[in-house]
């Protein structure tokens, strides 16, 4: 079978001539020393510094302040910063921000499921904690009531 194909066309089967399908970031770039290229590198390093600053802020907060603050506020603070970091990584490092908007939406929409996952499962966890506490309390009070009859 493979004898039908010229060496080049076999490579074609694996990768295809997809150079024309490249997204905006990859089109018509030729000179690595161009202004556009340098700006792109500058943007990458800028994002690096932002990510580093956010991480340092998180660690300082986790080391010194998170124990004195209300739990919900700490969680909100950390989760907001985490999502911000994730956004920078996906948009700039993974170049999703440079793709067509429709493609961005196609990739991101399924993640909306997480909203439901998180609400449902954490609510379930909280519910079981309450159930455990209540049944423990009921168990304890039943023991207290039974205690005199044992004597």
């Amino acid at each position, binding site marked *: 079978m493979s004898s039908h194909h010229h060496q080049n066309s076999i*490579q074609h089967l694996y*990768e*295809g001539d*997809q*150079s024309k*399908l*490249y*997204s*905006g970031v*990859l089109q018509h*770039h030729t*000179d*690595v020393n161009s202004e556009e*290229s340098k700006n*792109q*590198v500058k943007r*990458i*390093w800028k994002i*690096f510094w932002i*990510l*580093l600053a956010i*991480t*340092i802020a*998180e*660690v300082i907060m*986790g*080391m010194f302040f*998170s*124990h004195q603050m209300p739990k919900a506020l700490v*969680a909100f603070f*950390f989760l907001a*910063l*985490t999502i911000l*970091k*994730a956004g920078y*990584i*996906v948009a*700039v*490092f*993974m*170049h999703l921000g440079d*793709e*067509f908007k*429709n*493609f961005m939406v*196609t*990739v991101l929409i*399924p*993640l909306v*499921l*997480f909203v439901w*996952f*998180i609400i449902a*499962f*954490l609510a*379930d*966890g*909280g519910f*079981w*904690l309450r159930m455990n506490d209540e049944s423990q309390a009921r168990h304890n009070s039943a023991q207290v009531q039974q205690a005199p009859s044992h004597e």
Partner: protein
Amino acid sequence: MSQTTVVTTAPEPKLWAGGRSPYNVSYGKMMTWFFLLSDALTFGAFLISYGTTRFFSSVWPDPNQVFKAFPFMEGHNLPLLFVSLMTFILIMSSVTMVLAVHAGHYGDKKNVAKWLLWTIIGGICFLSCQAWEWTHMYSECINTWSNVPGQVKHGLWGSFTDVNTPVEEFRQFFNPHKESVQNILTNQPLIAMQSTHNFFNYFFTITGFHGGHVTSGVIFNILILVNTVNGVYERRGHYEMVEKIGLYWHFVDLVWVFVFTCFYLL
């Protein structure tokens, strides 16, 4: 462009009728994204079940107490410092990866190879840190007690499911300054032991799964480095494979961002 003059006779093919890429993204890259989407759901399931377990536990180990060691600085109380170093290494390797992808966009073979090499070094550094942390977590939990006289049990797995484990074996993982936590340790030590067991189960499962991803990422990076140096992509005319592996590598960094928050900060 020359196309516009030709198209006047034949109708423009419909965007979604096949034969073209409406998103202007190649098949391989699109499928990489969808694979990462499914992987995100896997990690999401892990982290959400961790959260659920944590929510139904009335006490939970304090990361500032569990993660306070640093290599060659034994005995010092350095909470979160080592994991910050690991996070820094991974972010740094993400930067070198995106620089490799950038060089690939311009067909700059020498720089692709250079930045891929740095990425591989970063990945190996991260894995070494994780190996140290795992070894440390394991050895810190070696039992000093045993219900069989004269025999010292090793490893934490058995001890946190054994009801005879003294509370002092796991008290070290909990916040010593919080009264409610200390009350539960004193009055209901088995609840605290169960939490300790769950905490370490999730910790080793999730960081292990992430470490497995880093390991395979390093292997992929080595493969594409070899291909780059051999001129495979130069002959192909594009460095899209570097971009696809780059997506995977950034995803691994992305997962770490969430693991870092869930295990070490919250």
